[in-house]
């Protein structure tokens, strides 16, 4: 906007303003009605949806759903979509940061004096794309399978062995699903890419090494020393059988 356009706007605006009505009581009345609507919605939501407390925190526990508040679902989904671990920092911090910087600097790169939406096609297209993307990602994030689920068939070796081995493997799979490993680790097609991928952990680590790591892990992974011994044995058995088959 150059000086002439600025002055034209200010002139136009001062006329519009002088023809308007005072803030009190006209706008205050509308705002008050809106405030009553907001208050009523909050009270209604509190009464209908309630606020029950979940189970008490337990860092080494079995069932939990690490889900954020619903308005962070889109961010969660961005993380799930961008798979390669090398791109995870980009997804987690890069995309939101870039979006925030673009939002922050909006008045400095969109300098045209035009204000009518129908004459700002680029701005409108960008806005509708952003809204659609966020709505889609929120929807997908809301319907994403809980990280407690794990779809996996026993590998041939385990099936062949059958009996006790198969039982241990299934029990280990259950422990993995319940202990929240997939919140950070990827196993096959399941889980997130925050921590190391465990799909082929059996080829690189021995049973002893896996057991050691579970008890005494590197931060930020929580220790699973509190896990019952038979659960931990099953977990180790399951993990050691992961050979990318």
């Amino acid at each position, binding site marked *: 906007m150059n000086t002439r356009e600025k002055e034209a706007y200010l002139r136009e605006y001062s006329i519009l303003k*002088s023809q308007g009505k005072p803030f009190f009581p006209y706008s205050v009345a509308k705002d008050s009605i809106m405030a009553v609507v907001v208050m009523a919605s909050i009270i209604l939501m509190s*009464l209908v949806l309630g606020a029950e407390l979940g189970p008490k925190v337990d860092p080494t526990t079995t069932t939990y759903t690490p889900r954020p508040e619903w308005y962070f679902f889109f961010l969660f989904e961005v993380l799930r979509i961008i798979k390669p671990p090398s791109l995870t920092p980009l997804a987690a911090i890069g995309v939101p940061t870039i979006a925030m910087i673009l939002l922050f600097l909006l008045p400095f790169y969109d300098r045209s004096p*035009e204000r009518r939406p129908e004459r700002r096609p680029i701005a409108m297209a960008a806005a509708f794309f952003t809204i659609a993307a966020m709505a889609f990602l929120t929807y997908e994030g809301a319907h994403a399978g809980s990280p407690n689920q794990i779809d996996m068939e026993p590998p041939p070796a385990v099936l062949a062995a059958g009996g006790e081995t198969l039982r241990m493997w299934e029990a280990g799979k259950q422990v993995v699903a319940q202990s929240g490993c997939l919140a950070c680790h990827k196993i096959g097609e399941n889980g997130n890419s925050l921590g190391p991928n465990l799909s082929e952990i059996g080829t690189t680590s021995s049973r002893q090494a896996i057991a050691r790591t579970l008890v005494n892990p590197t931060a*930020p992974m929580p220790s699973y020393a509190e896990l019952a011994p038979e659960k931990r044995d099953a977990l180790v058995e399951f993990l050691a059988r992961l050979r990318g088959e």
Partner: protein
Amino acid sequence: MANLKPPLPRALRPQPKRPGEDDGKTKIGRKDKVAEKGISTLDWIDERTSLSGGARWLMFRKIPKGTNWFYTLGSATLFAFLSQAVTGVILAMYYDPSATRAYESMRYLTNEVFLGEFVRGMHKWGSSVMVILVFLHMGRTFFYGAYKYPRELNWVIGVVLLILTLFMSFTGYLLPFDQRSFWATTVGVAINGTGPLIGPYLNDFLRAGPEFGVTTLARFYALHMLVLPGAIVAMIGAHLYLVARLGTTAPPWMKAEIPADSRKDDA
């Protein structure tokens, strides 16, 4: 000797009776006395603060014609924030920010205290309402082009308020200290940690150490209760000042009708 009192403001001076109006027997009612007390109190304050000019400037500024219901979204957001502040103070009266007792204090509030779950529900769902209103308010500003000259700075402050609101939600999520909040926050902090350059430092700062521990809760509590609300209040003050200073935008399709007499002057 009776005239030592200072002169009364004109509005309060006793008016001479109109002929035939009454016979001078009207009594000053209780209502009039109360009104007079109120006016004199306001005068006393105004004499010492000169606030009335600012209040008049704020309340009786003109709003351009054509404004519609979308223009109430900003004040609705402010109202949601005030609701969060009030319910938050009530929650703080019962909350114990120690890792061992936080959950117990919230359980007590939810299950034992009269209307405890109701107030907690208002705070919990009020945060959703506030986030929705922030986004709607931002959408109105965007579609109406209200972020353009001369209101660029107010847009920037608004984006800061959006970020502060989201941080508020993130830090508040941990405080009930149940399974859900603990694990969601663990993952959220880990996500922060993967960020480039400052990621690991931000991670350590949020967790108050290399691992998620007892001090993490105290840190989130301080951020949620002191730092972020203080910053939000300051930013809202600046935001509102600029709104009053620069004026509410007119809808973009409003065209000013040049008054007929001024057109004559131009000719």
